[in-house]
């Protein structure tokens, strides 16, 4: 079976209509530093509920200290 191989720079991946690259870029959009998050609950593309989440930015050790 022939291997389908493709290389794309970030600009190419951002500009393409190729579904596989679009999925890949969409996945990357969720990564990075997040200091405040939220969740939209949607039914049939209608936003019903927004759940805001404030995140505490601290080290795991500090968090454990605070809990105990």
């Amino acid at each position, binding site marked *: 079976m022939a291997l389908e191989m493709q290389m794309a720079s970030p600009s190419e*991946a951002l500009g393409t209509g190729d579904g596989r690259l679009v999925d890949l870029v969409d*996945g990357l959009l969720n990564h990075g*530093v*997040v200091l405040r998050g939220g969740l939209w609950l*949607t039914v049939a593309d209608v936003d019903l509920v927004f759940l805001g989440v404030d995140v505490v930015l601290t080290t795991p050790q500090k968090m454990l200290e605070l809990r105990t």
Partner: protein
Amino acid sequence: MKNVVLGWCRTGAPCPGDIQQTVRGPLTIVSLTSRRALTPRARMHQQVCCFEAGMNLLPVAPRTMFHLNEAMSLETSKNLILLEKLEKISGFGQLTLRLTSPQIEVPKVLQSEQWLRERQRIRVREEDRKKSLENTIRQLTFGSTQHSRVIHHAAGGIAVCHLLVPTDDQAKVKDRICSQATTAAQSLQSLYITGPWPAYAFADYCQAETERAHA
């Protein structure tokens, strides 16, 4: 108009002209007018421009909208954590690989008992396929710990792997992956390589994402 934060860099780092820098000690907040960073993809595009201009950027997740005034009000301790994170990814970029293995043939079985047995067989084969993709990723990425890896699996024999690679090595690593893929990876159907990106998958600090959950 409020500025939107793209990320943080070391104070004094090179920066494209239209990007605003706000110095907070050793860290600099990199931001842009919100009009030019309205969508996640627009923010990502700007982050890529900064990265390609030679900036070591600790990127904010493009899906989130983080305003400059919020970043400026972060406590010193939080800035220190961000600085530590930035140091770890400085001089590195991210290569992202998307691999697929061949589809599993699903026979049409109507009887319930056969259907159940078939589902079980497919599940076992999916697990094998997942393991085989992980082995392939190890093969392609030299089986070493030289480059950090993050692997995600999606349904249907798709795996996505992020590699943290030194900026100077990226072309070499891409070429090596391609040549290995043609010879070693017999079980692969397709391989997509993109990058170098800012190190998104290695900048995750808090996994609180803004998501849309479809009910």
